[in-house]
């Protein structure tokens, strides 16, 4: 057992995956000597060599496109996109090639690839460094999309994503990288960890179901704590997987609580919350006491960092939505 941050946990998980399978390669900008701008790949090139930890030219489509070829040759590339807002040059390769090759080839060619993207705001960064593009990938058949919220999940989920034979977009909440430490039991066999494409109830409650993922799980937990002070019992679900969604535990919860709020940093319009609200409505219609409410980033470009706290859903905006569901 080691106490570690999310950044360290991801690093340890990557190391373990590379030890387990010599076909696993890391590639991206500055992932080698520098260890990545967030140091997630720190020390890995030194230990695994330049052939397995590949400093790529500064071209995101190039990274993803060559990863397709490496996968066709039998490798398992783990691509790092340096920041969320830089993924778009690679969007064509991801959406038109990575996501479709298995389908196009009738399963003859697999794309066992992980696309790691640090995402989300709250770090005072300049434009293009704080975005939440998850819905754009979750909308694409052929991709799987997951996100971790804490060091323990980070450690196991990155290994599970690498072991997956389907392409996985792995979203890492960058403001959590160095935020909190947690005890990670590294000796736990991967098979005993919670399956990758499943959600988890992280706090039990009976009055309302609050759904969050990635960076917003921490905010949701605080909101539940604050609500408890006002006599409201909020159940919190960490969704963990965005495509496929694992909503069976959510339906079970909402049937008990009758109320649901979904929160994410991404824009509300056609965000994950829209799909989740639709599905909850479809599956729990007769149990709902109020419409499913969404608390997301506004439908504006991500703002200058001095006012990003206004844009990001916070404790008060989540609680406000919780309150509003009791007005119906």
């Amino acid at each position: 057992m080691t106490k570690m941050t999310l950044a360290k946990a991801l690093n340890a998980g990557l190391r373990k995956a590379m030890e387990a399978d010599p076909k696993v390669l890391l590639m991206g900008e500055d992932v080698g000597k520098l260890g990545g701008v967030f140091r997630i790949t720190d020390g890995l090139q030194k230990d695994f060599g330049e052939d397995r930890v590949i400093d790529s030219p500064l071209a995101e489509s190039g990274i993803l496109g060559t990863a397709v070829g490496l996968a066709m040759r039998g490798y398992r590339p783990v691509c790092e996109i340096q920041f969320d807002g830089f993924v778009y040059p690679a969007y064509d390769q991801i959406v038109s090639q990575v996501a479709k090759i298995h389908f196009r080839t009738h399963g003859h060619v697999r794309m066992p690839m992980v696309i790691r993207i640090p995402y989300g705001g709250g770090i005072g960064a300049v434009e293009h460094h704080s975005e939440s593009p998850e819905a754009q990938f979750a909308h694409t058949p052929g991709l799987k999309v997951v996100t971790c919220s804490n060091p323990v999940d980070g450690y196991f989920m990155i290994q599970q994503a690498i072991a997956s034979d389907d392409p996985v977009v792995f979203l890492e909440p960058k403001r959590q990288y160095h935020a909190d430490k947690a005890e990670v039991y590294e000796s736990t066999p991967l098979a005993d960890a919670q399956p990758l494409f499943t959600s988890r109830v992280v706090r039990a409650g009976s009055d309302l179901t609050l759904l969050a993922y990635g960076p917003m799980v921490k905010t949701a937990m605080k909101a539940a704590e604050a609500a408890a002070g006002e006599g409201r019992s909020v159940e919190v679900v960490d969704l963990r997987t965005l495509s496929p969604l694992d909503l069976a535990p959510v339906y079970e919860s909402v049937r008990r609580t009758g109320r649901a709020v979904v929160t994410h940093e991404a824009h509300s319009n056609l965000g994950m919350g829209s799909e989740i609200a639709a599905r909850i409505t479809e599956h729990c219609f007769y149990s709902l006491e109020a419409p499913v409410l969404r608390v997301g980033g506004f439908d504006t470009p991500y703002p200058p960092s001095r006012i990003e706290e206004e844009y990001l859903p916070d404790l008060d905006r989540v609680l406000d939505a919780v309150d509003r569901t009791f007005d119906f």
Partner: protein
Amino acid sequence: MSELLAPTPTGGPDFVQLLTPEGQRVEHPEYSFDVGEADEAEVVRGFYRDMVLTRRIDTESTALQRHGELGIWAQLLGQEAAQIGSGRALRPQDYVFPTYREHGVAYCRGVDPLRLLGLFRGVDQGSWDPRQNNFANYTIVIGAQTLHATGYAMGVQRDGAIGTGDPERDTAVIAYFGDGASSQGDVNESFVFAASYNAPVVFFCQNNQWAISEPIERQSRIPLYQRAHGFGFPGVRVDGNDVLATYAVTQAALQRAREGNGPTMVEAYTYRMGAHTTTDDPTRYRMSEELEKWKLKDPIARVKVYLTRNALADQDFFDEVETEAEQLGARLRDGCKALPDPSPLSIFDQVYVEQTDELAEQRDGYAAYLETFEGAH
């Protein structure tokens, strides 16, 4: 055509030609037609046969589109030498990343021509297993496959399958693309990656002068092969209508890659004698006299002249090839019409290696819906 981009009429160092449009063998200081132990005349007869059959695949498929049996067809008419010359230079372990027009290369790799039709008939999006012939599925997004080729070549490097001296192990990768694709970011990124890692890949550009309606001058102010130098690897222009020269140049480039000496760009200077696809109408944007000029450089005619004039093939041979082409045409006509439509439910099956519950649920829902129709069985 701009003089700047055109090769010198008599060939020269930037235009490798070994067989003139008039069917004359000519020497080149760097490249020669070397078939090793094989009988040269037999190899040339083989190229002739390959090109005639490839042209038949093309004309037959064009006709099938005209008869409504294919939704669309991407014609290669005029590019047979570029494809057969390069395709025949490949070894079994080499790997090909084609566009959607590489019917001649597919034929060289042993892909059943009937399988090419699935994509264009709309019954399939990739009907051959790439692993069987080391021939990837057709890529429609322009230039995307050049990065796949480069990545595959990086994998070849990591497997130690270059520079061993073992002719059955050392492996090259070839990426096909066109003059239009040379403007794509992915193609330029693939040049950067291949140069940076010295990857064993050959960038084979068929410059057929037209990207649908846009002439080569819209894509480049310099001959395309010269771009390679700016990326740090050699580029060579070859008469793409000369099957002997294309074979020689591609063979050298592939061998260079297999030996671990990195990428080469080959610009096969050719001409798209047909339309971009069967939906295109080239009379709207190009002069018919241009086509007439290129018809004089026909890749097949010059080989026939060469074989005949030098008594390397007799009429029986040409008749046999013609009969074979007729048989192939008939097989394509019958086979195309017999290609089955996929079952509607099959679209759910190969989205993922590990099926998701939500997609399985969608599939089951649609299956149940289909069951509600009378005569569903």
